[in-house]
């Protein structure tokens, strides 16, 4: 018997049942949140965070990722960041700030039709490297830029 096919049917049936349960409101948002990668967000160094989020920390530097951030951020509590990935088949964009207490800031997963573009505002504790990791076609690409911070945005 083709066991691969068996397990495929089983897992897809399970996924289907889960979807139904969510749409029927049987599972609360809290249960859905189990997907939130807690270990990756709790990691205290960049490699561990990338490893936690993607299962590997080997990334290739790519010039197809455009990272727009200020050279000097006066207020570390609000640093505007724009990432544009020209890599075809971009699946997700992750932002990491290397010297923050927990570097992983956000992971944006692109759905159907979404372009490799994301813009947001982040907090930075101190002058540090901003690392962007783009997942495309199963590979990890990265780009980084140093942002100088005058007033940190993490303390009180």
């Amino acid at each position: 018997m083709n066991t691969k096919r068996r397990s495929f049917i089983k897992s897809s049936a399970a996924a289907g049942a889960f979807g139904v349960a969510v749409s029927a409101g049987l599972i609360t948002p809290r249960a859905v949140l189990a997907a939130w990668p807690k270990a990756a967000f709790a990691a205290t160094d960049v490699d561990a965070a990338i490893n936690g989020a993607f299962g590997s920390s080997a990334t290739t530097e790519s010039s197809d990722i455009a990272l727009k951030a200020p050279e000097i951020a006066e207020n570390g509590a609000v640093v505007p960041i724009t990432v544009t990935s020209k890599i075809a088949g971009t699946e997700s964009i992750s932002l990491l700030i290397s010297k923050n207490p927990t570097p992983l800031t956000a992971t944006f997963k692109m759905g159907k039709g979404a372009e490799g573009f994301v813009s947001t505002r982040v907090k930075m504790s101190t002058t540090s490297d901003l690392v962007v990791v783009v997942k495309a076609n199963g590979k990890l690409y990265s780009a980084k830029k140093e942002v100088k911070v005058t007033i940190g945005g993490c303390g009180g």
Partner: protein
Amino acid sequence: MAKSIKVRAKVKGETTVVKALISHAMETGQRKNKKTGKMIPAHFIQEVTCSHNGNDVLNADWGTAISKNPYLSFKFNGAKKGDTLKMSWVDNKGESDSVEAKIK
């Protein structure tokens, strides 16, 4: 909960540009209350989803380092004027909010 999300979505040719502002404290859990000396517990958005006609176009996992009152912008293809865009968030205390907007 009062409406905490403001969304604008605009079609430009092929692509739709979505801009959103969410009002949320985004406490990191690392700040101290200066009067009592106690730590302010973390309170931040963990997950943001945005869907167009029932298809998820963006699904974001956020940590504590996203700024207070988060701003988010992204682009996607395949939408028309008048389509509905739905955006929702869930934070670490299980609070959530969602909003629907017409694409202009």
